């Protein structure tokens, strides 16, 4: 049964990333606190929060329909499904038969569509405000994301992430300026998609400034846990994609245990460095006014365009 062949590695990889996602958020929070000379919450606070939320009584609005319940579940499910399309430790993705870059972006868009739709379900103005802003930022980020990914894909001659990583790993890092530009473009998209400063502030609940948090304001209990976990997973996915696409160094090529240990160590190291970068950006910048975000996304789009232009035109 060929489905089982994909199911095992896919489930393992999804479990690994699900387990890792809250830790990454915790680490960024801890580092941010360190930069601000605060102590910050414990590194494992993300797990405690999830456990607490999962056991709490969920309160749902009387106005809401089944869409409100479906939103977080589809959001979480699509993020979990997307993990199977991304190479993490192995130079290949468990479900690369299913699709590549376009499927990855599409799955995340599907989750976002449902969560933003659900945000309109309670009749709260905050939800609509958040949903509107989230979809606006996503619409602006999408072309930039695509161009950034395409510049790597066209260089590697494949839109499939598994194939692409194998090609780039085989070739070794080219350190072409185009890759630098594409990485910068995708870093900006990562900031926007993960809802971090300067695009969004994950730590605020001030209605004038929040985007993602406003969209999910009405959720509680397990519903909220799924949203939180889903967005942590999404952030981890984008970071994994970034590090493994541009620095495929150390990805396991064989199924030998040693190769996996090396790959895991290197992956953790690369992820940590990127997390430091994200934290630095978050500490040294102020949140942008919402209507300045398009400029940031235009910058990212321009970088992606340049990345393609200097290599191919």
């Amino acid at each position: 049964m060929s489905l089982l062949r994909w199911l095992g590695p896919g489930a393992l990889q999804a479990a690994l990333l699900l387990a890792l996602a809250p830790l990454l958020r915790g680490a960024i929070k801890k580092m941010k606190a360190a930069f601000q000379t605060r102590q910050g919450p414990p590194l494992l606070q993300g797990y405690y929060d999830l456990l607490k939320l999962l056991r709490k009584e969920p309160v749902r609005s009387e106005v809401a329909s089944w869409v409100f319940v479906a939103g977080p579940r589809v959001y979480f499910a699509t993020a979990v499904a997307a993990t199977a399309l991304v190479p993490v430790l192995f130079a290949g993705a468990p479900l690369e038969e299913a699709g590549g870059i376009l499927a990855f972006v599409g799955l995340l868009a599907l989750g976002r569509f449902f969560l933003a739709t659900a945000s309109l379900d309670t009749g709260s103005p905050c939800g609509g405000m958040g949903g509107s802003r989230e979809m606006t930022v996503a619409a602006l980020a999408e072309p930039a994301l695509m161009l950034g990914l395409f510049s790597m894909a066209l260089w590697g001659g494949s839109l499939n992430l598994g194939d692409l990583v194998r090609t780039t790993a085989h070739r070794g890092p080219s350190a072409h300026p185009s890759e630098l530009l594409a990485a910068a473009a995708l870093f900006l998209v990562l900031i926007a998609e993960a809802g971090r400063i300067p695009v969004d502030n994950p730590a605020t609940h001030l209605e004038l400034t929040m985007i993602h948090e406003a969209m999910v304001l009405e959720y509680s209990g397990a519903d909220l846990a799924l949203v939180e976990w889903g967005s942590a997973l999404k952030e981890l996915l984008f970071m994994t994609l970034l590090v493994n696409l541009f620095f495929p160094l150390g990805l396991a090529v064989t199924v030998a245990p040693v190769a996996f240990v090396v790959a895991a160590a290197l992956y953790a190291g690369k992820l940590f460095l990127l997390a430091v970068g994200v934290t630095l950006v978050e500490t040294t910048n102020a949140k942008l006014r919402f209507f300045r975000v398009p400029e940031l996304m235009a910058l990212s789009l321009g970088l992606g365009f340049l990345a393609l232009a200097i290599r191919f035109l």
Partner: protein
Amino acid sequence: MLAHPASGFALGYGVDRLSAWFLLVLSVLAVPISVYSLGYLRHGLLQRRSVFVSVVFSILLGAVELVFAADGAVSFLFAWELMALANAALVATEHESREVRRAAFLYLAMSHVATGCLFAAFLTLSAASGSMSFATLQAASLTGTPRHVAFGLFFLGFGVKAGVIPLHVWLPEAHPAAPSSISALMSAVVIKTGVYGLFRFCAFGLGVPSPAWAVLVLLCGAASAVLGVLYALMQHDLKRLLAYHSIENIGIILLGLGSGMLALSSGRAELAALGIVAGLYHVLNHAVFKGLLFLGAGGVAIASGTRQLEEMGGLGKRMPWTALFFLVGAAAISGLPLLNGFASEWLLFQAFLVGFHLSSEVGGRLLLLVTSALLALTSALAAACFVKAYGVTFLALPRGEGAAKARESPWLMLAPQAFLAVLCVLLGLFPGVVVETLRGVASSLPGVRPAPELARSVFAIAPGPGHFDHLSPLLLAAAVLLGLGVSLVLSLFAGYPVRRAATWGCGGELSARTEYTATAFSKPLMLIFSAIYRPTREVQAVGEAYFTREVTYRSEIEPTFERFVYGPLTRGVLQAAERLKVIQAGSLHAYLAYVLLLGIVLLLWLGGGG
């Protein structure tokens, strides 16, 4: 078949694979829309006109079928005109309203400009080939300027019918004005006659397309896609919003056609197949989901008595089935995976990127780059637009009395929507079936040779041999289902049952008046793209200073094409008519003199030649 051998005049019909594909699209839509009409025409004013609507609807169906099946210019133009007239009559069904009459007139006027262009184009071709049948017309070897002129005329003629920007102005007026069953047919199939013409004559009827044509088609496609969705975002009339999305989707189809033509012009047969297949796939997909959405919108408009988004809300609880089917259509049109819109847009991205990969000239690469970025923007904006359209219509509390009293549509209207919604899912999960069929269609076209790997299996498609990319939506669906399973297991940990409570109202009372509106939802995008919209806004506060009793708010976007393209054009025509009035004095003597003068000129011209 009617024929007059002496003059070579023939009314002939013949179906090749390209016609068959479009006939398939027509048939898939005609049945559910007809069933829907049975329920729909029982309502209100339409009940009194149900005989009229049914009869003309049947004539329209027949005419569209003839357009796809005609194998000569005479039968084609006959069917084309019949279609335009039947359609205009249906647009004018509710002719008591001035707007409806205006929409029908605009449709008729634009349609006839288009037909005029087609007449000229067919006559140019038949002058060169000496026959009116398509087989000989297409063999006519025009070269140089006449070939470009024929292309231009065909593009204008079919572009108007398809609603390509900047020839689209009639579409957002006519589609909402017609009864919803007719809007569904118009948007799903009738505008596809224009697309059919573009495929048959612009891409494959005039020999190998020139690169300049491909660039024109790509640019018009990109403009239609992006501007179509941007204008759709600003609409608060549900049917108008859907009409602008038709423009967007026609743009997407044209992007496929244009990339195919670009490949044809450089002789790349396999690459051309990719763009052509993507375009034709999207023709079917758009027909299915747009038909579904218009049928749903028709049900909503009848149940709530309004088409204005700002007066709707909460319909999901009152019309659960309509809401469910509309959600499927909304996700499909937004190009989200597991549904059909994703499959064709995926193929289109492949056509762009494989084209980029294979092409060597800078201009072509640059163009494909820009169009793929614009396609990404289009589908993301479409998602934003349908979050708004679905959320404001079906979720939260009803904003108007009509919406509060709405009831679910009868099953006669729901069953066709269910059929189309299931089709959206099936066409998305089994793209291999569609692509395999389209491989046959594409291979019948001159200069196109689809790669056998296009459909790897029933479930999987790929742009060609090798590792460039592949897609298997059924596997994605399995992965999402597993994810859903995990989320359901996680939800079981809660030690308490779900509690229902009022939505948190920041300390105040929440009502339908505090809900986020459609205007507010799309406002950020209006401000971001204000260079395109050029919005104007008017706020009036009534009351003494500091104590406002009432605020009126009006916001408008600039109808750029109507004001800056069609405005001067109309004025120019009217002025020219004013000038020409001098020779139309109404005096019989003057007219006799004209006839005499014309006779002399003709004698001199024709006699002088001999």
